[in-house]
């Protein structure tokens, strides 16, 4: 699994520093991806940059990032310039604090990354930090510049490595109270045992198959069919709509009883 690291830098706890690298834990590379084609020629459509004033195409390598200083006046910044931003958090994940595992509300979790030692020099120092967090059931808090923003990040030990989560900013997360304030805070106590009975009947262990993508499967089928035929076909399976009516269930108790009975009959009960 020699994936090209997405970021290289250092992990630091007090006076202990080790070289690390990081790759995103999620990726869209396996997703069925379409390209844009020119219907008339069947060739690919590509984007091209043109100068907004001269109207001429801009040669590759001549486009640069510009920071607007005024109307039509830009300061050009190279990648090396950007790398020189005077923040230690561009290259170093300095663990400032430790908080109990699971104390960060999950709505703040934005994107997971896998963090690991970059070379054997750092193996032991990395393992010390990881194992101490494991032993104390804590996660580390730090800051890191990702995608030209400084993010709050948490570090969670997982197996041999560490998962680094970037956190959403405070103004990106909406307070749950204003959504939940009108909801009953107590359920009818007679209903709860029935719900729990239903839960038992429908209980399962987590498996990644639960997050499968049936549409991607249909697309792949469509593509392979086309590839075989190499001519367009009009027949594509339309998903059959589930016609069951979803309106008001008047008696929840009855419905729950029916559910439990149905589950029992289906023999899936554990």
């Amino acid at each position: 699994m020699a994936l090209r690291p997405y970021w290289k830098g250092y992990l630091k706890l007090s006076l202990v520093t080790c070289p690390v690298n990081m790759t995103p834990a999620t990726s869209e590379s396996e997703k069925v991806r379409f390209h844009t084609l020119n219907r008339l020629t069947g060739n690919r459509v590509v984007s091209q940059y043109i100068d907004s004033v001269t109207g001429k195409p801009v040669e590759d390598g001549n486009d640069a990032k510009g920071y607007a200083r005024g109307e039509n006046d830009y300061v050009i910044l190279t990648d090396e310039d950007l790398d020189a931003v005077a923040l230690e958090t561009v290259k170093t994940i300095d663990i400032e604090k430790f908080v109990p595992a699971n104390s960060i509300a999950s709505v703040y979790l934005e994107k997971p990354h896998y963090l690991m030692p970059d070379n054997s020099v750092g193996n032991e120092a990395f393992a010390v930090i990881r194992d101490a967090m494991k032993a104390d059931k804590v996660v580390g808090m730090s800051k890191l510049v990702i995608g030209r923003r400084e993010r709050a990040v948490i570090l969670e030990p997982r197996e041999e490595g560490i998962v680094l989560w970037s956190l959403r900013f405070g103004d990106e997360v909406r307070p749950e109270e204003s959504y939940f304030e009108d909801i009953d805070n107590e359920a009818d106590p007679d209903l709860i045992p029935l719900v729990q009975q239903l839960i038992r009947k429908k209980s399962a262990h987590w498996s990644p198959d639960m997050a499968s993508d049936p549409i991607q499967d249909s697309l792949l089928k469509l593509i392979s069919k086309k590839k075989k035929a190499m001519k367009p076909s009009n027949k594509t399976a339309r998903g059959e709509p589930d016609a069951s009516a979803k309106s008001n269930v008047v008696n929840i108790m009855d419905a729950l009883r029916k559910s439990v009975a149905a589950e029992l009959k289906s023999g899936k009960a554990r």
Partner: protein
Amino acid sequence: MASGHRAQWKGFLKFGEVSCGVALYTAASTSERITFNSINKVTGNRVNRVFIDSETEERVEREDQTKGFEIENGQFIIIDPEEVAATIPESNKTLDVQAFIPSSEVDDIYFDKPYYLTPDKMGAEAFAALRDGMRKSKVAAIARAVLFRRMRTVLIRPQGNGLVATTLNYDYEVRSSRKAFEEMPKLNIEGEMLALAKHIIGTKRGEFDPASFEDRYEAALAELVKAKIEGKALPKRKSVEVSKPSDLLAALRESAGLMKTASHKPKRTAANANAGTGRQRAARGAAEKAASSKAVPQRKAS
């Protein structure tokens, strides 16, 4: 319910034979990062993007653009957007609970976007019963629904008086952590090293409110741009010194504030006795960091 907010989706939550009217509200938005303009280095003008045919290099208008799937060596199968649309099942507006899984088995690596899930008036009773039943049984629900033109798997968990529904990334989008970490050596840290590291953690325990976090990047970038305009030397970060494996124990001891003098060897049992010294040392570390780049990083005694 949830007055004053606009629902992202309205439909039904179905578990067993029970269904109740619910709405999904975005729990988190994404704010924009700093955007740059693309500039032609030669003229200093902004650049615009146009779409051209890769062979003829002529402009291709939007109505002439279609979708294609690359099979091999640059060969494409043209697929009509309508054919793609036909693969999407018609939405039945239902979050259909497929299973309940133990809360301890929830794998957050799959988490995509969080939504607040709330009932309508008619559904309030069933909603509250499900929420409390799940909480008592310590489970999360796995539901499926057509959301925003894709079939999504949604993890539903009780939170306060409501439910939080988190869309999950597809199985093929999540890299296995086992595979990612498989080449790492299996090291188990024990004894003094672990005790020292735990001691350091003890001195840095605290609380964190993500809402209070400030992004300093834009200010740092503005400084950089100013320096560049004024033709000043760009700021330089201190170089980082990596702890050598042979220095690791000394670095841990020093971090834990145990190393009074280079010659004095602390006893193992002292690992937890010196929290005060540890804090002092940590404060000194912070002061050093704030000081100018001239500050020489503290080295470990050998």
